Protein backbone atom coordinates (compact mmCIF):
# COMPACT_ATOMS: atom_id res chain seq x y z
CA UNK A 1 0.00 0.00 0.00
CA UNK A 2 2.82 2.31 0.88
CA UNK A 3 4.25 1.63 -2.56
CA UNK A 4 1.06 2.70 -4.27
CA UNK A 5 1.13 5.90 -2.28
CA UNK A 6 4.65 6.58 -3.49
CA UNK A 7 3.68 6.45 -7.15
CA UNK A 8 0.40 8.25 -6.55
CA UNK A 9 1.10 11.21 -8.91
CA UNK A 10 1.97 9.03 -11.90
CA UNK A 11 -0.89 6.71 -11.10
CA UNK A 12 -3.42 9.54 -10.84
CA UNK A 13 -2.37 11.09 -14.11
CA UNK A 14 -2.33 7.74 -15.84
CA UNK A 15 -5.72 6.72 -14.50
CA UNK A 16 -7.06 10.08 -15.58
CA UNK A 17 -5.73 9.32 -19.07
CA UNK A 18 -7.51 5.96 -19.07
CA UNK A 19 -10.71 7.61 -17.87
CA UNK A 20 -10.44 10.17 -20.64
CA UNK A 21 -9.94 7.36 -23.13
CA UNK A 22 -13.06 5.69 -21.79
CA UNK A 23 -14.92 8.98 -22.29
CA UNK A 24 -13.61 9.12 -25.85
CA UNK A 25 -14.95 5.66 -26.54
CA UNK A 26 -18.30 6.55 -25.00
CA UNK A 27 -18.45 9.49 -27.36
CA UNK A 28 -18.78 12.27 -24.80
CA UNK A 29 -18.60 15.82 -26.05
CA UNK A 30 -15.39 17.82 -26.27
CA UNK A 31 -16.28 19.87 -23.23
CA UNK A 32 -16.95 16.85 -21.03
CA UNK A 33 -13.76 15.10 -22.06
CA UNK A 34 -11.83 18.24 -21.36
CA UNK A 35 -13.45 18.64 -17.94
CA UNK A 36 -12.56 15.09 -16.97
CA UNK A 37 -8.97 15.64 -18.07
CA UNK A 38 -8.74 18.96 -16.24
CA UNK A 39 -10.12 17.44 -13.05
CA UNK A 40 -7.64 14.58 -13.45
CA UNK A 41 -4.70 16.93 -13.80
CA UNK A 42 -5.82 18.90 -10.73
CA UNK A 43 -6.02 15.63 -8.80
CA UNK A 44 -2.54 14.80 -10.10
CA UNK A 45 -1.25 18.11 -8.78
CA UNK A 46 -2.86 17.32 -5.45
CA UNK A 47 -1.27 13.88 -5.42
CA UNK A 48 2.13 15.46 -6.07
CA UNK A 49 1.66 17.82 -3.15
CA UNK A 50 0.62 14.93 -0.90
CA UNK A 51 3.71 12.91 -1.78
CA UNK A 52 6.05 15.88 -1.59
CA UNK A 53 7.62 14.81 1.69
CA UNK A 54 7.88 11.11 0.93
CA UNK A 55 10.98 9.10 0.25
CA UNK A 56 11.23 5.54 -0.90
CA UNK A 57 11.51 3.06 -3.70
CA UNK A 58 8.19 1.63 -4.86
CA UNK A 59 9.68 -1.08 -7.10
CA UNK A 60 12.76 -3.25 -6.89
CA UNK A 61 15.48 -1.23 -5.12
CA UNK A 62 17.49 0.96 -7.44
CA UNK A 63 15.05 1.21 -10.33
CA UNK A 64 12.72 3.97 -9.33
CA UNK A 65 13.39 6.53 -6.65
CA UNK A 66 10.91 8.82 -4.99
CA UNK A 67 12.48 11.65 -3.04
CA UNK A 68 12.01 15.36 -2.56
CA UNK A 69 13.85 16.14 -5.79
CA UNK A 70 11.71 13.89 -7.96
CA UNK A 71 8.49 14.92 -6.24
CA UNK A 72 9.29 18.61 -6.56
CA UNK A 73 9.91 18.13 -10.26
CA UNK A 74 6.68 16.16 -10.57
CA UNK A 75 4.78 18.93 -8.82
CA UNK A 76 6.20 21.41 -11.29
CA UNK A 77 5.25 19.10 -14.18
CA UNK A 78 1.71 18.65 -12.85
CA UNK A 79 1.28 22.38 -12.32
CA UNK A 80 2.50 23.07 -15.83
CA UNK A 81 0.17 20.40 -17.17
CA UNK A 82 -2.78 22.09 -15.51
CA UNK A 83 -1.73 25.38 -17.09
CA UNK A 84 -1.37 23.79 -20.52
CA UNK A 85 -4.76 22.13 -20.23
CA UNK A 86 -6.25 25.54 -19.49
CA UNK A 87 -5.22 26.48 -23.02
CA UNK A 88 -6.27 23.18 -24.59
CA UNK A 89 -10.02 23.64 -24.53
CA UNK A 90 -10.98 23.07 -28.19
CA UNK A 91 -8.25 25.13 -29.89
CA UNK A 92 -9.32 26.05 -33.43
CA UNK A 93 -5.82 25.43 -34.79
CA UNK A 94 -6.26 21.70 -34.38
CA UNK A 95 -8.21 19.29 -36.50
CA UNK A 96 -11.77 19.33 -35.26
CA UNK A 97 -11.89 15.60 -34.69
CA UNK A 98 -8.71 15.81 -32.63
CA UNK A 99 -10.02 18.19 -29.99
CA UNK A 100 -11.23 15.37 -27.83
CA UNK A 101 -7.95 13.51 -28.04
CA UNK A 102 -5.71 16.41 -27.14
CA UNK A 103 -6.14 16.11 -23.33
CA UNK A 104 -5.69 12.34 -23.50
CA UNK A 105 -2.28 12.57 -25.16
CA UNK A 106 -1.19 15.43 -22.93
CA UNK A 107 -1.96 13.37 -19.83
CA UNK A 108 -0.13 10.33 -21.15
CA UNK A 109 2.95 12.29 -22.06
CA UNK A 110 2.97 13.90 -18.63
CA UNK A 111 2.83 10.48 -16.99
CA UNK A 112 5.94 9.53 -19.00
CA UNK A 113 7.68 12.75 -18.00
CA UNK A 114 6.92 12.06 -14.36
CA UNK A 115 8.46 8.62 -14.73
CA UNK A 116 11.56 10.27 -16.16
CA UNK A 117 12.14 12.37 -13.07
CA UNK A 118 12.10 9.32 -10.81
CA UNK A 119 13.79 6.67 -12.93
CA UNK A 120 17.21 5.71 -11.61
CA UNK A 121 17.85 2.86 -13.98
CA UNK A 122 19.06 3.44 -17.50
CA UNK A 123 16.48 1.44 -19.39
CA UNK A 124 13.57 2.72 -17.34
CA UNK A 125 14.86 6.17 -18.14
CA UNK A 126 14.94 5.36 -21.85
CA UNK A 127 11.47 3.90 -21.72
CA UNK A 128 10.10 6.96 -19.96
CA UNK A 129 11.80 9.17 -22.54
CA UNK A 130 10.03 7.34 -25.34
CA UNK A 131 6.70 7.16 -23.51
CA UNK A 132 6.72 10.90 -23.04
CA UNK A 133 7.64 11.52 -26.68
CA UNK A 134 5.16 9.29 -28.55
CA UNK A 135 1.96 11.19 -27.69
CA UNK A 136 3.59 14.50 -28.57
CA UNK A 137 4.62 13.22 -32.01
CA UNK A 138 1.00 12.29 -32.65
CA UNK A 139 -0.32 15.62 -31.39
CA UNK A 140 1.75 17.73 -33.76
CA UNK A 141 0.25 15.94 -36.77
CA UNK A 142 -3.24 16.82 -35.65
CA UNK A 143 -2.78 20.42 -36.75
CA UNK A 144 -5.70 21.66 -38.84
CA UNK A 145 -3.28 22.46 -41.64
CA UNK A 146 -2.26 18.92 -42.48
CA UNK A 147 0.77 19.94 -44.46
CA UNK A 148 2.24 22.01 -41.69
CA UNK A 149 1.40 19.50 -38.99
CA UNK A 150 2.81 16.47 -40.74
CA UNK A 151 6.00 18.24 -41.75
CA UNK A 152 6.59 19.59 -38.28
CA UNK A 153 5.91 16.19 -36.75
CA UNK A 154 8.19 14.41 -39.21
CA UNK A 155 11.07 16.70 -38.44
CA UNK A 156 10.57 16.53 -34.71
CA UNK A 157 10.12 12.79 -34.70
CA UNK A 158 13.11 12.02 -36.92
CA UNK A 159 15.43 14.10 -34.78
CA UNK A 160 13.93 12.68 -31.62
CA UNK A 161 14.39 9.13 -32.81
CA UNK A 162 18.00 9.75 -33.82
CA UNK A 163 18.72 11.35 -30.45
CA UNK A 164 17.16 8.46 -28.54
CA UNK A 165 19.04 5.89 -30.64
CA UNK A 166 22.30 7.69 -29.79
CA UNK A 167 21.25 7.69 -26.13
CA UNK A 168 20.74 3.96 -26.27
CA UNK A 169 24.12 3.37 -27.92
CA UNK A 170 25.78 5.39 -25.16
CA UNK A 171 23.89 3.44 -22.51
CA UNK A 172 25.19 0.18 -23.96
CA UNK A 173 28.79 1.22 -23.30
CA UNK A 174 28.03 2.28 -19.75
CA UNK A 175 26.29 -1.04 -19.23
CA UNK A 176 29.33 -2.84 -20.64
CA UNK A 177 31.88 -1.03 -18.53
CA UNK A 178 29.99 -1.18 -15.26
CA UNK A 179 28.06 -4.41 -15.80
CA UNK A 180 24.91 -2.81 -14.46
CA UNK A 181 22.22 -0.34 -15.45
CA UNK A 182 21.52 1.00 -11.97
CA UNK A 183 22.65 4.57 -11.50
CA UNK A 184 23.49 3.96 -7.85
CA UNK A 185 25.85 1.10 -8.72
CA UNK A 186 27.38 3.09 -11.55
CA UNK A 187 28.00 5.93 -9.11
CA UNK A 188 29.63 3.51 -6.70
CA UNK A 189 31.90 2.11 -9.42
CA UNK A 190 32.81 5.56 -10.69
CA UNK A 191 36.36 5.70 -9.28
CA UNK A 192 37.32 2.82 -11.59
CA UNK A 193 35.04 3.79 -14.46
CA UNK A 194 36.19 7.40 -14.40
CA UNK A 195 39.63 6.47 -15.71
CA UNK A 196 38.15 4.92 -18.85
CA UNK A 197 37.73 7.39 -21.73
CA UNK A 198 35.03 5.16 -23.22
CA UNK A 199 32.87 5.72 -20.15
CA UNK A 200 32.83 9.46 -20.74
CA UNK A 201 32.13 9.01 -24.44
CA UNK A 202 29.27 6.72 -23.50
CA UNK A 203 27.94 9.24 -21.00
CA UNK A 204 28.04 12.03 -23.57
CA UNK A 205 26.19 9.88 -26.10
CA UNK A 206 23.71 9.01 -23.37
CA UNK A 207 22.99 12.67 -22.66
CA UNK A 208 22.04 13.21 -26.33
CA UNK A 209 18.40 12.26 -25.89
CA UNK A 210 17.95 14.59 -22.92
CA UNK A 211 19.87 17.45 -24.48
CA UNK A 212 17.51 16.99 -27.40
CA UNK A 213 14.49 17.49 -25.18
CA UNK A 214 16.15 20.56 -23.70
CA UNK A 215 16.97 21.81 -27.24
CA UNK A 216 20.65 22.35 -26.52
CA UNK A 217 23.14 22.70 -29.37
CA UNK A 218 23.77 20.44 -31.40
CA UNK A 219 20.31 18.94 -30.88
CA UNK A 220 18.46 22.23 -31.20
CA UNK A 221 17.37 22.19 -34.85
CA UNK A 222 13.88 21.04 -34.06
CA UNK A 223 12.97 23.74 -31.56
CA UNK A 224 12.11 26.72 -33.83
CA UNK A 225 10.50 24.54 -36.51
CA UNK A 226 8.47 22.50 -34.08
CA UNK A 227 7.32 25.48 -32.04
CA UNK A 228 6.35 27.14 -35.30
CA UNK A 229 4.45 24.26 -36.85
CA UNK A 230 2.76 22.68 -33.84
CA UNK A 231 -0.72 23.67 -32.77
CA UNK A 232 -0.28 26.38 -30.12
CA UNK A 233 -1.25 24.35 -27.01
CA UNK A 234 1.03 21.50 -28.11
CA UNK A 235 3.89 23.93 -28.64
CA UNK A 236 3.20 25.25 -25.14
CA UNK A 237 3.42 21.73 -23.78
CA UNK A 238 6.71 21.02 -25.56
CA UNK A 239 8.18 24.33 -24.44
CA UNK A 240 7.23 23.99 -20.80
CA UNK A 241 6.33 20.58 -19.43
CA UNK A 242 8.79 18.42 -21.32
CA UNK A 243 11.68 20.77 -20.54
CA UNK A 244 11.30 20.17 -16.80
CA UNK A 245 11.76 16.43 -17.07
CA UNK A 246 14.82 16.81 -19.29
CA UNK A 247 16.38 19.19 -16.79
CA UNK A 248 15.61 16.80 -13.94
CA UNK A 249 17.34 13.93 -15.72
CA UNK A 250 20.37 16.06 -16.61
CA UNK A 251 20.68 17.13 -12.97
CA UNK A 252 20.51 13.52 -11.87
CA UNK A 253 23.05 12.29 -14.41
CA UNK A 254 25.50 15.06 -13.58
CA UNK A 255 25.02 14.41 -9.88
CA UNK A 256 25.96 10.79 -10.54
CA UNK A 257 28.96 11.55 -12.70
CA UNK A 258 30.27 14.89 -11.58
CA UNK A 259 29.93 15.34 -7.85
CA UNK A 260 32.13 12.43 -7.00
CA UNK A 261 35.58 13.57 -5.90
CA UNK A 262 37.20 10.63 -7.63
CA UNK A 263 36.10 11.55 -11.12
CA UNK A 264 39.17 13.35 -12.39
CA UNK A 265 38.09 12.90 -15.96
CA UNK A 266 34.87 14.73 -15.22
CA UNK A 267 36.79 17.67 -16.65
CA UNK A 268 36.23 16.33 -20.17
CA UNK A 269 32.50 16.28 -19.63
CA UNK A 270 32.66 19.79 -18.25
CA UNK A 271 34.60 21.16 -21.23
CA UNK A 272 32.12 19.62 -23.64
CA UNK A 273 29.23 21.11 -21.69
CA UNK A 274 30.87 24.54 -21.70
CA UNK A 275 31.37 24.41 -25.46
CA UNK A 276 27.77 23.33 -25.98
CA UNK A 277 26.47 26.05 -23.67
CA UNK A 278 28.43 28.79 -25.44
CA UNK A 279 27.33 27.54 -28.86
CA UNK A 280 23.68 27.27 -27.78
CA UNK A 281 23.52 30.73 -26.22
CA UNK A 282 25.25 32.48 -29.09
CA UNK A 283 23.40 30.67 -31.81
CA UNK A 284 20.01 30.96 -30.18
CA UNK A 285 20.30 34.65 -29.48
CA UNK A 286 21.79 35.63 -32.83
CA UNK A 287 19.22 33.64 -34.80
CA UNK A 288 16.39 35.07 -32.71
CA UNK A 289 17.38 38.60 -33.77
CA UNK A 290 16.01 38.15 -37.28
CA UNK A 291 12.88 36.12 -36.55
CA UNK A 292 9.53 37.43 -37.71
CA UNK A 293 7.38 34.73 -36.18
CA UNK A 294 6.66 34.97 -32.46
CA UNK A 295 6.66 31.24 -31.74
CA UNK A 296 9.82 30.71 -33.77
CA UNK A 297 11.43 33.53 -31.82
CA UNK A 298 10.46 31.79 -28.61
CA UNK A 299 12.03 28.62 -30.02
CA UNK A 300 15.39 30.32 -30.48
CA UNK A 301 15.02 31.93 -27.09
CA UNK A 302 14.50 28.43 -25.66
CA UNK A 303 17.80 27.33 -27.21
CA UNK A 304 19.54 30.28 -25.57
CA UNK A 305 17.93 29.48 -22.22
CA UNK A 306 19.06 25.87 -22.50
CA UNK A 307 22.55 27.34 -22.79
CA UNK A 308 22.08 29.46 -19.64
CA UNK A 309 20.95 26.40 -17.73
CA UNK A 310 24.00 24.42 -18.81
CA UNK A 311 26.20 27.32 -17.65
CA UNK A 312 25.17 26.39 -14.12
CA UNK A 313 25.06 22.65 -14.82
CA UNK A 314 28.74 22.54 -15.73
CA UNK A 315 29.67 23.85 -12.28
CA UNK A 316 29.03 20.32 -10.97
CA UNK A 317 28.04 21.74 -7.62
CA UNK A 318 24.96 21.65 -5.43
CA UNK A 319 24.78 25.43 -5.74
CA UNK A 320 24.56 25.13 -9.52
CA UNK A 321 21.90 22.45 -9.29
CA UNK A 322 19.83 24.48 -6.86
CA UNK A 323 20.04 27.45 -9.19
CA UNK A 324 18.85 25.24 -12.06
CA UNK A 325 15.85 23.90 -10.16
CA UNK A 326 14.96 27.42 -9.05
CA UNK A 327 15.32 28.86 -12.53
CA UNK A 328 13.35 26.01 -14.10
CA UNK A 329 10.28 26.82 -12.02
CA UNK A 330 10.48 30.47 -13.00
CA UNK A 331 11.32 29.75 -16.63
CA UNK A 332 8.29 27.55 -16.88
CA UNK A 333 5.99 30.32 -15.69
CA UNK A 334 7.55 32.94 -17.99
CA UNK A 335 7.43 30.72 -21.06
CA UNK A 336 3.88 29.71 -20.35
CA UNK A 337 2.83 33.36 -20.15
CA UNK A 338 4.40 34.11 -23.54
CA UNK A 339 2.78 31.06 -25.11
CA UNK A 340 -0.53 31.90 -23.50
CA UNK A 341 -0.42 35.25 -25.28
CA UNK A 342 0.50 33.46 -28.52
CA UNK A 343 -2.45 31.07 -28.06
CA UNK A 344 -4.91 33.88 -27.44
CA UNK A 345 -3.66 36.14 -30.21
CA UNK A 346 -3.35 33.26 -32.63
CA UNK A 347 -6.64 31.68 -31.73
CA UNK A 348 -7.76 31.57 -35.34
CA UNK A 349 -4.38 31.72 -37.01
CA UNK A 350 -2.08 28.89 -37.98
CA UNK A 351 0.97 30.98 -37.17
CA UNK A 352 1.61 33.92 -34.88
CA UNK A 353 3.87 36.45 -36.59
CA UNK A 354 5.26 39.14 -34.31
CA UNK A 355 3.24 41.65 -36.30
CA UNK A 356 0.05 39.94 -35.13
CA UNK A 357 0.83 41.27 -31.67
CA UNK A 358 0.51 44.83 -32.96
CA UNK A 359 -1.80 46.93 -30.85
CA UNK A 360 -2.17 44.26 -28.21
CA UNK A 361 -2.31 47.04 -25.66
CA UNK A 362 -5.54 48.29 -27.19
CA UNK A 363 -7.01 44.91 -27.94
CA UNK A 364 -6.52 43.47 -24.49
CA UNK A 365 -4.64 45.36 -21.77
CA UNK A 366 -4.59 42.23 -19.63
CA UNK A 367 -2.75 40.16 -22.26
CA UNK A 368 -0.38 43.03 -22.93
CA UNK A 369 0.48 43.26 -19.25
CA UNK A 370 1.06 39.50 -19.09
CA UNK A 371 3.29 39.69 -22.15
CA UNK A 372 5.24 42.48 -20.49
CA UNK A 373 5.85 40.37 -17.39
CA UNK A 374 6.71 37.25 -19.40
CA UNK A 375 9.08 39.05 -21.74
CA UNK A 376 10.71 40.94 -18.86
CA UNK A 377 11.28 37.57 -17.24
CA UNK A 378 12.83 36.00 -20.32
CA UNK A 379 15.03 39.05 -20.83
CA UNK A 380 16.18 38.84 -17.24
CA UNK A 381 15.02 42.21 -15.94
CA UNK A 382 14.12 42.82 -12.31
CA UNK A 383 11.77 42.49 -10.49
CA UNK A 384 11.00 39.19 -12.23
CA UNK A 385 12.40 35.75 -11.55
CA UNK A 386 14.31 36.03 -14.82
CA UNK A 387 16.75 38.44 -13.20
CA UNK A 388 17.30 36.73 -9.89
CA UNK A 389 17.29 33.27 -11.49
CA UNK A 390 19.97 34.20 -13.99
CA UNK A 391 21.90 35.82 -11.19
CA UNK A 392 21.89 32.50 -9.33
CA UNK A 393 22.81 30.53 -12.45
CA UNK A 394 25.73 32.77 -13.28
CA UNK A 395 26.98 33.06 -9.71
CA UNK A 396 27.13 29.25 -9.51
CA UNK A 397 29.48 29.31 -12.50
CA UNK A 398 31.40 32.26 -11.04
CA UNK A 399 31.96 30.47 -7.78
CA UNK A 400 33.52 27.77 -9.89
CA UNK A 401 35.90 30.32 -11.44
CA UNK A 402 34.36 30.40 -14.92
CA UNK A 403 34.67 34.16 -15.49
CA UNK A 404 34.94 33.95 -19.25
CA UNK A 405 31.87 31.74 -19.56
CA UNK A 406 29.79 34.06 -17.40
CA UNK A 407 31.02 37.04 -19.43
CA UNK A 408 29.87 35.35 -22.63
CA UNK A 409 26.53 34.52 -21.03
CA UNK A 410 26.08 38.09 -19.83
CA UNK A 411 26.93 39.49 -23.28
CA UNK A 412 24.38 37.10 -24.74
CA UNK A 413 21.72 38.29 -22.34
CA UNK A 414 22.48 41.82 -23.47
CA UNK A 415 22.05 40.88 -27.13
CA UNK A 416 18.76 39.21 -26.27
CA UNK A 417 17.34 42.48 -24.92
CA UNK A 418 17.03 43.73 -28.50
CA UNK A 419 14.65 41.10 -29.82
CA UNK A 420 12.60 40.84 -26.66
CA UNK A 421 12.11 44.58 -26.63
CA UNK A 422 11.13 44.49 -30.30
CA UNK A 423 8.23 42.24 -29.33
CA UNK A 424 7.15 44.67 -26.63
CA UNK A 425 7.48 47.62 -29.00
CA UNK A 426 5.13 45.94 -31.46
CA UNK A 427 2.66 45.08 -28.72
CA UNK A 428 2.60 48.50 -27.11
CA UNK A 429 3.47 51.11 -29.71
CA UNK A 430 2.12 49.91 -33.05
CA UNK A 431 -1.45 50.23 -34.19
CA UNK A 432 -3.28 46.94 -34.75
CA UNK A 433 -3.53 45.71 -38.33
CA UNK A 434 -6.86 46.32 -40.05
CA UNK A 435 -8.00 42.72 -40.10
CA UNK A 436 -7.53 42.10 -36.39
CA UNK A 437 -8.72 45.07 -34.43
CA UNK A 438 -11.23 43.10 -32.38
CA UNK A 439 -11.05 42.99 -28.63
CA UNK A 440 -9.46 39.81 -27.30
CA UNK A 441 -11.33 38.34 -24.37
CA UNK A 442 -9.57 35.36 -22.78
CA UNK A 443 -11.79 32.98 -20.87
CA UNK A 444 -11.95 33.42 -17.07
CA UNK A 445 -9.94 30.24 -16.62
CA UNK A 446 -7.12 31.54 -18.80
CA UNK A 447 -7.18 34.82 -16.87
CA UNK A 448 -6.90 32.92 -13.60
CA UNK A 449 -4.01 30.84 -14.93
CA UNK A 450 -2.27 33.94 -16.20
CA UNK A 451 -2.67 35.63 -12.84
CA UNK A 452 -1.15 32.66 -11.04
CA UNK A 453 1.76 32.48 -13.47
CA UNK A 454 2.44 36.22 -13.28
CA UNK A 455 2.26 36.04 -9.52
CA UNK A 456 4.83 33.22 -9.48
CA UNK A 457 7.16 35.16 -11.78
CA UNK A 458 6.97 38.28 -9.63
CA UNK A 459 6.92 36.52 -6.28
CA UNK A 460 10.00 34.46 -7.10
CA UNK A 461 11.68 37.61 -8.35
CA UNK A 462 10.95 39.72 -5.29
CA UNK A 463 11.15 37.13 -2.54
CA UNK A 464 13.13 34.17 -3.83
CA UNK A 465 13.87 32.73 -0.36
CA UNK A 466 10.93 30.38 -0.12
CA UNK A 467 11.46 28.75 -3.52
CA UNK A 468 15.23 28.77 -3.12
CA UNK A 469 14.97 26.84 0.13
CA UNK A 470 12.71 24.20 -1.40
CA UNK A 471 15.10 23.85 -4.36
CA UNK A 472 18.07 23.57 -2.00
CA UNK A 473 16.37 20.89 0.06
CA UNK A 474 15.48 18.96 -3.11
CA UNK A 475 19.10 19.07 -4.23
CA UNK A 476 20.26 17.88 -0.82
CA UNK A 477 17.89 14.92 -1.24
CA UNK A 478 19.34 14.28 -4.69
CA UNK A 479 22.92 14.53 -3.47
CA UNK A 480 22.27 12.19 -0.55
CA UNK A 481 21.49 9.41 -3.01
CA UNK A 482 24.83 9.40 -4.77
Amino acid at each position, binding site marked *: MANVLLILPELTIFLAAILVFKCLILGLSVLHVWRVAFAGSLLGLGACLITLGMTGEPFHPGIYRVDLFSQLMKTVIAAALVLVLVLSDSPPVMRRDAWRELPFFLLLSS*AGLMMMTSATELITLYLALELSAFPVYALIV*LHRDRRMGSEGATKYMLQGMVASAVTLYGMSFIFG*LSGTTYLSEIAAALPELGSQPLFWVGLLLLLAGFLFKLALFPFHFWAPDTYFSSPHPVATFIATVSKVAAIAVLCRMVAVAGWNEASIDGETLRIVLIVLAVAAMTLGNLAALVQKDFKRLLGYSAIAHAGYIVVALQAFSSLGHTAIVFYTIGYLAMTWICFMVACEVGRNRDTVPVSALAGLWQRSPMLALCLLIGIFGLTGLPPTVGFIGKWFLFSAALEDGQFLLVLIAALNSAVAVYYYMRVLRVAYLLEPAKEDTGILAPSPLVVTGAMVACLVVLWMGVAPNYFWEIAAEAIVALGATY
Partner: protein
Amino acid sequence: MIATLVIAAFMILAMAGAIYAALVPHTLHCIIGLGLTLFGVAGIYLYLGSPFVAAMQILIYIGGISVAMVFALMLSVSLAKKMKHSEIKVILSSIAAILFLAVMARLIMTTEFPLREEPAGAAAWGVEQIGHGFLTTYSPLFIGLAICLSVAIIAAVLVARREADKS
Protein backbone atom coordinates in the same frame (compact mmCIF):
# COMPACT_ATOMS: atom_id res chain seq x y z
CA MET B 1 35.45 -24.18 -35.58
CA ILE B 2 32.20 -24.45 -37.50
CA ALA B 3 30.53 -22.24 -34.93
CA THR B 4 33.17 -19.59 -35.51
CA LEU B 5 32.69 -19.75 -39.27
CA VAL B 6 28.93 -19.49 -38.94
CA ILE B 7 29.06 -16.52 -36.60
CA ALA B 8 31.60 -14.83 -38.86
CA ALA B 9 29.21 -15.32 -41.76
CA PHE B 10 26.36 -13.77 -39.76
CA MET B 11 28.54 -10.83 -38.78
CA ILE B 12 29.56 -10.21 -42.38
CA LEU B 13 25.92 -10.48 -43.43
CA ALA B 14 24.92 -7.89 -40.84
CA MET B 15 27.68 -5.47 -41.82
CA ALA B 16 27.22 -5.93 -45.56
CA GLY B 17 23.47 -5.40 -45.26
CA ALA B 18 23.98 -2.23 -43.25
CA ILE B 19 26.52 -0.76 -45.67
CA TYR B 20 24.31 -1.69 -48.62
CA ALA B 21 21.32 -0.03 -46.97
CA ALA B 22 23.32 3.09 -46.29
CA LEU B 23 24.62 3.55 -49.82
CA VAL B 24 22.11 2.10 -52.25
CA PRO B 25 20.09 4.65 -54.27
CA HIS B 26 16.79 2.79 -54.29
CA THR B 27 14.41 2.88 -51.31
CA LEU B 28 13.18 -0.68 -51.66
CA HIS B 29 16.76 -1.97 -51.88
CA CYS B 30 17.50 0.02 -48.76
CA ILE B 31 14.80 -1.85 -46.85
CA ILE B 32 16.10 -5.15 -48.21
CA GLY B 33 19.54 -4.23 -46.91
CA LEU B 34 18.00 -3.56 -43.51
CA GLY B 35 16.30 -6.95 -43.66
CA LEU B 36 19.63 -8.69 -44.30
CA THR B 37 21.19 -6.85 -41.38
CA LEU B 38 18.33 -7.79 -39.08
CA PHE B 39 18.75 -11.41 -40.07
CA GLY B 40 22.49 -11.26 -39.39
CA VAL B 41 21.82 -9.66 -36.01
CA ALA B 42 19.40 -12.47 -35.16
CA GLY B 43 22.22 -14.94 -35.91
CA ILE B 44 24.51 -13.00 -33.59
CA TYR B 45 21.93 -13.21 -30.79
CA LEU B 46 21.73 -16.96 -31.34
CA TYR B 47 25.48 -17.25 -30.93
CA LEU B 48 25.33 -15.09 -27.81
CA GLY B 49 23.10 -17.70 -26.26
CA SER B 50 19.60 -16.29 -26.47
CA PRO B 51 17.44 -18.12 -28.97
CA PHE B 52 14.38 -16.37 -27.54
CA VAL B 53 15.61 -12.88 -28.35
CA ALA B 54 16.75 -14.10 -31.77
CA ALA B 55 13.26 -15.42 -32.43
CA MET B 56 11.72 -12.13 -31.32
CA GLN B 57 14.13 -10.26 -33.58
CA ILE B 58 12.98 -12.28 -36.56
CA LEU B 59 9.30 -12.15 -35.64
CA ILE B 60 9.01 -8.48 -34.74
CA TYR B 61 11.79 -6.82 -36.67
CA ILE B 62 11.84 -8.77 -39.91
CA GLY B 63 8.26 -9.97 -39.81
CA GLY B 64 6.74 -6.77 -38.48
CA ILE B 65 8.83 -3.70 -38.92
CA SER B 66 10.38 -4.39 -42.32
CA VAL B 67 7.09 -5.55 -43.73
CA ALA B 68 5.35 -2.43 -42.40
CA MET B 69 8.00 -0.32 -44.07
CA VAL B 70 7.51 -2.08 -47.39
CA PHE B 71 3.76 -1.57 -47.02
CA ALA B 72 4.23 2.12 -46.43
CA LEU B 73 6.40 2.19 -49.51
CA MET B 74 3.74 0.49 -51.60
CA LEU B 75 1.00 2.79 -50.33
CA SER B 76 2.90 5.87 -51.35
CA VAL B 77 3.72 5.06 -54.92
CA SER B 78 6.18 7.84 -55.56
CA LEU B 79 8.50 6.27 -53.03
CA ALA B 80 9.12 3.29 -55.24
CA LYS B 81 10.70 5.59 -57.76
CA LYS B 82 14.40 6.06 -57.71
CA MET B 83 15.18 8.77 -55.21
CA LYS B 84 17.23 11.87 -55.75
CA HIS B 85 20.66 10.59 -55.05
CA SER B 86 23.26 13.18 -54.28
CA GLU B 87 26.72 11.62 -54.50
CA ILE B 88 28.36 14.49 -52.68
CA LYS B 89 26.13 14.18 -49.65
CA VAL B 90 26.72 10.45 -49.46
CA ILE B 91 30.47 10.93 -49.72
CA LEU B 92 30.57 13.71 -47.12
CA SER B 93 28.46 11.79 -44.65
CA SER B 94 30.52 8.65 -45.28
CA ILE B 95 33.68 10.58 -44.43
CA ALA B 96 32.11 11.85 -41.21
CA ALA B 97 30.88 8.37 -40.30
CA ILE B 98 34.28 6.80 -41.03
CA LEU B 99 35.96 9.37 -38.78
CA PHE B 100 33.51 8.51 -36.01
CA LEU B 101 34.12 4.81 -36.66
CA ALA B 102 37.89 5.21 -36.46
CA VAL B 103 37.78 7.11 -33.17
CA MET B 104 35.32 4.72 -31.57
CA ALA B 105 37.14 1.64 -32.85
CA ARG B 106 40.37 2.89 -31.30
CA LEU B 107 38.59 3.56 -28.02
CA ILE B 108 36.98 0.12 -28.02
CA MET B 109 40.24 -1.64 -28.81
CA THR B 110 42.17 0.16 -26.09
CA THR B 111 39.53 -0.24 -23.39
CA GLU B 112 39.77 -3.17 -21.06
CA PHE B 113 36.32 -4.44 -20.27
CA PRO B 114 35.70 -6.20 -16.96
CA LEU B 115 35.31 -9.63 -18.57
CA ARG B 116 33.61 -12.40 -16.70
CA GLU B 117 35.71 -15.46 -15.91
CA GLU B 118 33.64 -17.51 -18.27
CA PRO B 119 30.95 -16.34 -20.71
CA ALA B 120 27.48 -16.99 -19.42
CA GLY B 121 26.18 -20.41 -20.31
CA ALA B 122 22.84 -20.89 -22.03
CA ALA B 123 21.45 -22.53 -18.90
CA ALA B 124 21.64 -19.29 -16.96
CA TRP B 125 19.17 -17.43 -19.11
CA GLY B 126 16.26 -19.29 -20.47
CA VAL B 127 12.87 -17.87 -21.27
CA GLU B 128 11.87 -18.56 -17.69
CA GLN B 129 14.54 -16.25 -16.34
CA ILE B 130 13.50 -13.53 -18.76
CA GLY B 131 9.88 -13.83 -17.73
CA HIS B 132 10.85 -13.88 -14.08
CA GLY B 133 12.97 -10.76 -14.54
CA PHE B 134 10.18 -8.95 -16.32
CA LEU B 135 7.67 -9.71 -13.62
CA THR B 136 9.83 -9.09 -10.56
CA THR B 137 12.88 -6.84 -10.74
CA TYR B 138 12.02 -5.09 -13.97
CA SER B 139 8.27 -4.79 -13.51
CA PRO B 140 8.26 -1.03 -14.27
CA LEU B 141 9.82 -1.85 -17.64
CA PHE B 142 7.12 -4.39 -18.36
CA ILE B 143 4.33 -1.99 -17.42
CA GLY B 144 5.98 0.87 -19.26
CA LEU B 145 6.47 -1.17 -22.40
CA ALA B 146 2.84 -2.24 -22.37
CA ILE B 147 1.72 1.37 -22.01
CA CYS B 148 4.10 2.49 -24.75
CA LEU B 149 2.81 -0.08 -27.22
CA SER B 150 -0.83 0.73 -26.57
CA VAL B 151 -0.14 4.44 -26.83
CA ALA B 152 1.66 3.86 -30.11
CA ILE B 153 -1.22 1.89 -31.56
CA ILE B 154 -3.84 4.41 -30.46
CA ALA B 155 -1.73 7.28 -31.74
CA ALA B 156 -1.05 5.59 -35.07
CA VAL B 157 -4.73 4.86 -35.64
CA LEU B 158 -5.83 8.36 -34.69
CA VAL B 159 -3.18 10.02 -36.80
CA ALA B 160 -3.63 7.97 -39.94
CA ARG B 161 -7.43 8.02 -40.02
CA ARG B 162 -8.99 10.26 -42.59
CA GLU B 163 -10.55 13.49 -41.44
CA ALA B 164 -14.24 13.09 -40.70
CA ASP B 165 -15.23 16.60 -41.68
CA LYS B 166 -13.26 18.22 -44.42
CA SER B 167 -15.01 21.54 -43.93
